[in-house]
């Protein structure tokens, strides 16, 4: 190719890319929702003198163009592949994929966050609990605990995390479940653990709390929709879809579940949410602040108050097999100061079950 032709080719190629994508943007109808990122996409900003003079329109317009760019997910994948394979970055926006499993780097250990979490838990204890209550603490390691040491990623000092939290709390009994879990107990593309792999964990928790699991007649069900976890969208890398499995049994089917946040009865498994944007929300309908699970077939009259995060949603039904009633509380969505209005703590076992991710970012706890 001669230089003259090359110059024409360079100019044409540049024009094709710039004008081609520009025209595609204009012709493409605006998207409303990003499935991979589970969020609404920005729409064309409001045009008025105030917004223009303050520069808000321009800022919003740039964000809008980023959200509505044609083939957006494809471009994000190109970036992720380039960062991982060409620049050899060990993570992309803190997300990495190791042997087909996506995880997020959680680092460093934030002592102030642990102190804050302990303070919140102690406040609950001081305000509502007395000698009639047995108090337990159990922590759920994030996926980094399993993947980071072998893949050379940064990870929390988990021993320090556990010991610092226990030091800052008073009067609780720590139940160690780290040894029962492994990386296969978590979804490959999501933060959360798999309910179908939690029987031994639930059994241990119940046993340590002096209760007995009732897993008779458990049936493993498979959700009929492909599951792309939260890291699928964040990593923007091509990862295979997974399946969500969940347990039913006569005892679980008999649970009477009530949603105090919306003041209505609900189901253990929310099939509407199973087919929604985040199928993991099928477990106790996702982020609901206060739920009670009554077990009419319980062989005990013991009650449990479970302070939990989203990991608790999938294990709560298994724990409920060992109690007559489980009150499931998420203090990220309800002020702990008002819990006394809704919960009778007298004689109840109390379990604080939290993932290390939430404890290391505990500013969300109320």
């Amino acid at each position, binding site marked *: 190719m001669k230089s003259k032709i*090359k110059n024409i080719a360079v*100019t044409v190629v540049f024009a094709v890319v710039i004008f081609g994508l520009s025209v595609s943007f204009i012709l493409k109808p605006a998207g409303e929702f990003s499935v991979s990122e589970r969020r609404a996409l920005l729409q064309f900003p409001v045009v008025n003198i105030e917004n223009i003079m303050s520069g808000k329109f*321009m800022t919003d317009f740039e964000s809008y163009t980023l959200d509505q760019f044609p083939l957006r997910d494809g471009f994000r994948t190109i970036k992720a592949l380039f960062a991982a394979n060409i620049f050899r970055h060990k993570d992309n926006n803190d997300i990495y994929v190791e042997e087909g499993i996506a995880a997020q780097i959680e680092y460093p250990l934030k002592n102030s966050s642990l102190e804050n979490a302990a303070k919140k838990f102690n406040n609950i204890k001081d305000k509502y609990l007395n000698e009639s209550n047995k108090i337990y603490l159990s922590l759920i390691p994030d996926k980094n605990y399993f993947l980071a040491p072998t893949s050379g990623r*940064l990870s929390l000092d988990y021993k320090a995390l556990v010991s610092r939290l226990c030091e800052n709390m008073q009067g609780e009994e720590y139940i160690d479940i780290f040894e029962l879990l492994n990386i296969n107990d978590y979804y490959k593309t999501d933060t959360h653990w798999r309910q179908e792999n939690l029987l031994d964990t639930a059994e241990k928790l119940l046993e340590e709390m002096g209760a007995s699991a009732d897993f008779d007649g458990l049936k493993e069900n498979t959700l009929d929709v492909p599951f792309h976890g939260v890291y699928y969208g964040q990593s923007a890398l091509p990862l295979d879809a997974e399946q969500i499995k969940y347990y039913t049994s006569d005892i679980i089917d008999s649970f009477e579940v009530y949603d105090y946040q919306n003041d209505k009865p609900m189901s253990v498994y929310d099939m509407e949410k199973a087919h929604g944007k985040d199928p993991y929300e099928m477990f106790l309908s996702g982020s609901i602040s206060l739920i009670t699970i009554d077990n009419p077939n319980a062989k005990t009259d013991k009650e449990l108050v479970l302070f939990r995060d989203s990991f608790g949603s999938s294990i709560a039904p298994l724990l409920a097999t060992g109690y007559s009633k489980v009150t499931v509380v998420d203090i990220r969505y309800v002020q702990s100061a008002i819990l006394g209005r809704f919960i009778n703590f007298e004689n109840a076992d109390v379990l604080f079950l939290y993932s290390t991710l939430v404890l290391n970012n505990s500013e969300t706890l109320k």
Partner: protein
Amino acid sequence: MLFSSIPFLYFFLPCVLILYFAVPRCLKNTVLMLVSLFFYAWGEPKYVLLMAATIGIGYVTGLLIEKFKGKALSKVFLGLSVAVDLGFLAYFKYADFFIENFNAVTGLSLPLLRIALPIGISFYTFQIMSYSIDVYRGDVPAQKNPVNLAAYVTMFPQLIAGPIVRYADIEKQLKHRTHSFEKAAAGIRRFVIGLAKKILIANTLGELCDIFRESDEKAVLYYWLYAVAFALHIYFDFSGYSDMAIGLGKIFGFDFLENFNYPFVSSTVTEFWRRWHMSLGSWFRDYVYIPLGGNRVSKGRWFFNIFVVWLLTGFWHGAAWNFIIWGLFFAVLLVLEKLFLKNFLEKTKVIKRIYIALAVLISFVIFNATDMKEAFQYIGGMFGAGGIPFVSAEMLYYLKSYALVLVLSLIGSTPVIKNTALRLCNGEKTVKVINVLEPVVIAALLIVMTAYLVDGSFNPFLYFRF
């Protein structure tokens, strides 16, 4: 509006190219001026009038300077033009700095003005000043056509981040310039290279610098990693922007002068500043240093001139003490080099390399510090002050994660890639391969850079604050 943004690449630029190449030659400068005003207004709608006023005063005083050439009034109008430019700069950029320091010295508490800095004011006021001075000196005739002068000052490729294009350098091109596929292709090539330097290298190294600054696990080697990463970051950021400006200029038929010439291969600070931000260096040389007498004066006066120029160079970069110290740091090194250091360094290659590396790294640590306290803390950290560990797990992780980008940027900061490309272009067989590959590489780079832009919003441009 940043060049490295989706609105610029896929909205502004296509519209401008269509408009510019659709209109007849006589209207091209008008189109350039109008789109440049729109470009400026996009980032600073409130300050378009300020820029228009500055240009208007520059235009009128330019005509008057020429009209009264050789008379005292000519000097008066030059003084007026320069005073207005410096006045605007002092008020909008430095007022709060002066008030803060006045309060600190006197114990008073005069309220700060808290004025938002108009984008690019340091660049366009220097351009208009150089125009007025050149007209006064008789180096260029005053521009009779206000559109041409406005097109020169507002020209969007160089408006907000330089290079500081002198009127004298493009005066003829404003009237007569050519457009060709050869020039357009050269411009596109340069623009895409600049965009890649900015998006792929500078922004990535910027991430590393941010990670370091937020870290609670500082270690000696981590400070050094930061110092290297920031020096490379600012080089790729600024030189990338200059490349984009030069490339865009070429597409529109202009030939802007180079602004960088591989400064990191320098062996002395004197050489470094002949290769770094050349348009600013030559501006201060021609309009401050030489009028002060340059080096054709006594030794004491010569060194005084150097200190004045570098004090102003530092202050030009920002209204804060760390910028002034940064400028004076170079002044001290330049004087030492002139006294004895240069001769001493000539004798040993290794020490020369260590000296320039240390000088540049420390200078940019001062440059990027939020204040002098932080600058001293960081420089101390580089030498183990504060009992910090030598290395940390976090530092090792990020060193591994960014190793390839660091190596690529180190290679890219030398002429190795350019020289290799030139060699290949001169080979009879290899040139054919290059000719085929070039359009493909340009398309691929555009796609990857678009992917980076779509993926993230991390895209600040450092020189906006100047």
